[in-house]
């Protein structure tokens, strides 16, 4: 291994600019003549728009334009789309209502985009936005997923009973039979709490129309700029793709929320032309982020697990109501279906699984993919069931899991997925060892002396990531293919530029991708630059989400590097007067087999460009597209230990252990950071974060950090008690043998934490987030029941 190659914990190249304040985010960019957009948003959860009077606002100082849905319609600009078609059990297509970029006729959630003011300054735009007079006629609203199909609030006329689809996966009859003959059935009612993504950088956009070239440029906070360009061109109909450049510069966190195409960025582009080509900038304030970023999770589930008399699982049955919010966001429909139910087999051999999902409209912000996207929801269902079943069967939860682990691969589950490789027992063994699981009894006794209830909880997660392959996702309803692209440009001095269709917004691609190049070409990572996030520079690509940049994106780079090496061998062969077949490339040097002739990488690169030896095509620039054969399947075990304060219900995570199988690691330091960050988000979901809409008013009650509780350092286990370990079964479908690590922490942790608290206080069910109030109430319930 070279010092900056694959497997080395190289410090991140990009951090110098981030920690010295030199990052360049969308809001840092200011274009000549730039104007500012401020949106008029709905104060109502559900209302008919009777009229919008823009006259006063339009006459205010600095105002360049006040636009509403009718202006958008005048220019025939299309609405936002949902790019994944789901069919109901009865074969009908999902029932999607329109999602205009500025409201037409109705508003459907608090924060819905009603009108926009463009002015010389942000303050002028804000003042004029406050003067736009919208007259509303309030309609009945519903914010609760569980009530969506029975409420009188009808969000979209296209979806009767607010039901977007009623979808099923698996063999319903066989699963029913398994339950009929089960020795034991464990049932749980489970709510997966709605979360607000809270990326550190709020969403922002600058739309700029060039009147001279009839060309648009969009700077935006996006995880996938090419997809944004495609959608804005093909569906909004603003302009053809070659007339639109989308740039996603440094992006300060996404967690999924910046995958989607949002109204604001389309409006900024469109409005720029409307105001004569002045660039139009919009930056969300924090309240707008709370109100209008796509939220995550929000599932209400009934789950059942059937076991036989030997403690083997015979069936799993799930019914889930998934809130879509008020509109279908870009990939909303696939999250509670193909990203969720397909993982319900967990790490277990389950012969019969049936899942049914009702997706529903509610008067809330749209819900879409958020770190893990469907897989945390699946893992939560499976792992809460596993722990509860083990306790009911009086089996050790670790042993109950082990008894049901899948042990031979490949393994075809009853819910589409074909697991390619894994060793679940090895991860469990290592996790139990690292967490000192066998001595937990002693620690419980010690904690009791301090007035604390110690509890331990396990979670054995699996996820499918490296989202692809195109044919598979296409057959399941995806409107796009999910491959990735790469280009390798070798400069005359031998330095290398990598152009990738993936996008880094915290993942560290500038380092890890360079490590791969360093490894393959034998050059230092400082001689490699990574270019991404600009549709004019980079070939079409699919972006970053679903832990795909490594497994899919780096595979494309690897293929392009293969081609570049082949081309360089041709050059070297010409220079050393040998046959290309006799050229060997190793450790950055080309040699002719059986001779002492040798040229290093940079010398060959130079010869490729000076081209003084005739007979080959000059230059080394190669590209590749890669469409993998399967998902990748990271898996692992989390062990959480908590202390619950008997008096107050306050829960502290005192010990946390993760053992993950991500296959081969490119940069262990970055992988560890991903796991720790993911666990922080999972602890956030389990203990702290609640997105609360008021049932009566439909207002978002948790619209600031005064009420929305983000995880802090003090909510994490202390460093010595937060243990990470790895096992490795290399992924057979990519040459690096790697899986994905971006979401695992957030997927595995919520059930581990809740399993630990329920163990500590002796309750069966406990809602997330398990705040001190919630835990205290659960303990009160126990006391009352005991009396």
């Amino acid at each position: 291994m070279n010092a900056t190659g694959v497997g080395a914990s190289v410090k991140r190249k990009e951090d110098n600019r981030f920690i010295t304040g030199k990052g360049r985010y969308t809001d840092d960019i200011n274009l000549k003549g730039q104007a500012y957009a401020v949106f008029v948003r709905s104060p109502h959860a559900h209302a008919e728009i009777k009229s919008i009077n823009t006259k006063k606002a339009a006459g205010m100082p600095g105002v360049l334009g006040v636009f509403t849905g009718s202006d958008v319609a005048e220019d025939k600009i299309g609405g936002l789309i949902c790019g994944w078609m789901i069919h109901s059990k009865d074969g009908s297509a999902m029932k999607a209502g329109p999602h205009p970029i500025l409201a037409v006729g109705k508003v459907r959630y608090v924060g819905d985009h009603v009108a926009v003011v463009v002015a010389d300054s942000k303050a002028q735009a804000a003042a004029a936005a406050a003067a736009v007079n919208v007259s509303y006629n309030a309609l009945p609203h519903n914010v609760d997923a569980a009530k969506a199909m029975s409420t009188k609030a009808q969000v979209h006329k296209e979806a009767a009973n607010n039901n977007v689809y009623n979808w099923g996966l698996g063999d319903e009859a066989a699963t029913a039979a398994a339950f009929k003959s089960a020795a034991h059935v464990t049932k749980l009612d489970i709510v997966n709490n709605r979360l607000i993504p809270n990326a550190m950088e709020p969403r922002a956009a600058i739309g700029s129309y060039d009147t001279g070239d009839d060309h648009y440029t969009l700077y935006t906070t996006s995880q996938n700029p090419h997809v944004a360009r495609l959608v804005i061109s093909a569906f909004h109909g603003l302009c053809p793709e070659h007339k639109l450049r989308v740039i996603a510069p440094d992006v300060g966190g996404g967690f999924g929320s910046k995958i989607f195409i949002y109204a604001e960025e389309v409006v900024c582009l469109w409005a720029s032309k409307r105001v004569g080509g002045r660039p139009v900038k919009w930056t969300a304030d924090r309240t707008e982020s709370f109100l209008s970023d796509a939220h995550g999770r929000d599932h209400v589930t009934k789950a059942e697990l059937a076991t036989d008399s030997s403690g083997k699982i015979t069936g799993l049955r799930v019914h889930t109501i998934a809130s879509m919010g008020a509109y279908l966001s870009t990939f909303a429909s696939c999250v509670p279906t193909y990203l969720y139910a397909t993982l319900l087999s967990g790490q277990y051999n389950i012969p019969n699984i049936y899942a049914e999902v009702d997706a529903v409209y509610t008067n809330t912000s749209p819900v879409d993919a958020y770190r893990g996207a469907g897989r945390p929801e699946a893992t939560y269902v499976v792992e809460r069931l596993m722990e509860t079943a083990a306790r009911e069967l009086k089996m050790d939860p670790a042993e109950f899991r082990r008894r049901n682990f899948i042990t031979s691969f490949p393994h075809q589950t009853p819910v589409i997925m074909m697991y390619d490789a894994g060793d679940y027992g090895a991860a469990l063994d290592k996790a139990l060892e690292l967490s000192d699981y066998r001595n937990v009894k002693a620690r419980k006794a010690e904690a009791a002396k301090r007035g604390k209830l110690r509890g331990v909880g396990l979670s054995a997660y699996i996820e499918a990531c490296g989202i692809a392959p195109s044919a598979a996702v296409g057959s399941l309803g995806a409107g796009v293919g999910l491959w990735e692209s790469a280009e390798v440009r070798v400069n005359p001095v031998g330095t290398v530029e990598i152009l990738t269709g993936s996008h880094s917004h915290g993942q560290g691609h500038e380092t890890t991708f360079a490590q791969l190049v360093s490894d393959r070409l034998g050059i230092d990572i400082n001689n490699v630059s990574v270019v991404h996030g600009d549709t004019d520079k980079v070939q079409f690509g699919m972006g970053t989400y679903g832990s795909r940049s490594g497994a899919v994106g780096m595979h494309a780079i690897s293929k392009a590097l293969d081609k570049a090496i082949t081309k360089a061998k041709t050059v070297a062969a010409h220079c050393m007067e040998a046959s290309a077949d006799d050229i060997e490339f190793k450790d950055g040097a080309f040699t002719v087999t059986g001779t002492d002739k040798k040229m290093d990488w940079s010398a060959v690169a130079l010869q490729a460009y000076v081209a003084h030896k005739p007979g080959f095509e000059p230059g080394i620039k190669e590209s590749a597209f890669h469409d993998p054969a399967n998902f990748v399947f990271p898996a692992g075990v989390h062990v959480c230990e908590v202390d619950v304060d008997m008096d107050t219900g306050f829960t502290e995570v005192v010990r946390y252990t993760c053992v993950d199988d991500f296959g081969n690691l490119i940069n262990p330091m970055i992988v560890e950071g991903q796991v720790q960050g993911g666990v922080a988000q999972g602890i956030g979901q389990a203990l702290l974060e609640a997105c609360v809409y008021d049932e009566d008013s439909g207002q978002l009650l948790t619209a600031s950090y005064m009420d929305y509780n983000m995880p802090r350092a003090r909510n994490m286990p202390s460093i010595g008690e937060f243990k990470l370990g790895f096992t490795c079964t290399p992924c057979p479908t990519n040459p690096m043998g790697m899986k994905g690590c971006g979401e695992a922490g957030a997927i595995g942790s919520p059930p581990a934490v809740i399993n630990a608290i329920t163990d500590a206080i002796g309750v069966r069910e406990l809602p997330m987030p398990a705040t001190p109030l919630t835990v205290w109430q659960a303990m009160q319930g126990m006391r009352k029941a005991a009396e």
Partner: protein
Amino acid sequence: MENFNYHRPATVAAAAALLKKSKDGVYLAGGHTILPTMKQGLRAPKDVVDLSGIKAMSGIKASAGAVVIGAGTTHMEVASSSAVKKAIPALAEMAGKIGGVHVRHKGTIGGSIANADPASDYPSACLALGATIVTNQRKIPADKFFTGLFQTALKKGEIITAVSFPIPKRAAHQKFPNPASRYALTGVFVAQGKDGKARVGVTGAGPAAFRVADMEAALSKEFSEKSIAAIKVPPRGLLNDMHATAAYRAHLVSVLARRAVAAAK
């Protein structure tokens, strides 16, 4: 934020005169409440009278019987004052737990008390220690000062100039922070005076800070955890929101009071 006239007088009298002259004026101390409300457009005063230039309003003086803290003294100054740490360590500790570092360096005792946020910490200390709120017009006993949700006995234009805390025999403060905002979801300050009488001040739980008479009576007889172990606070009238029900807040008052008694020094 709307435009306003900014004033920074050097004396209490000048500040009071400026406010009297203004049609719609406010005093600015640390600014942690008024500035956010102005930024959000919830308030748009014509005149902002900054009290931070008044030298006479800052500083800490300790005598044998009391610690007198100028109203313009920051939380950080109180937390790190050797005089406060020596005379009333519980007060210094409490000040050191208000907000975050930035807040403690800007926020002042006078501003906090005048604002009377139901979740702020100082009101519980004022009640438990039997403090006197000194203004440019009079002296107000803490018991008469906190009158309701963000309501105080202060008259329009009246300025708190200092707070005088009698030195107790022992005292302690316990806070259970709101998980999100870190304000006191419930906070209890317990003090036993040199005369042996105990006082219990509660913040965060009700619309205004209040005392718990039953606990005070029991603790005055015997200052021990045991003596208040069975005393429950009725939830009626306490705050009820998504973070804590009235019943939970009432329960926390009992728990925190016991812990404060155990920690009192």
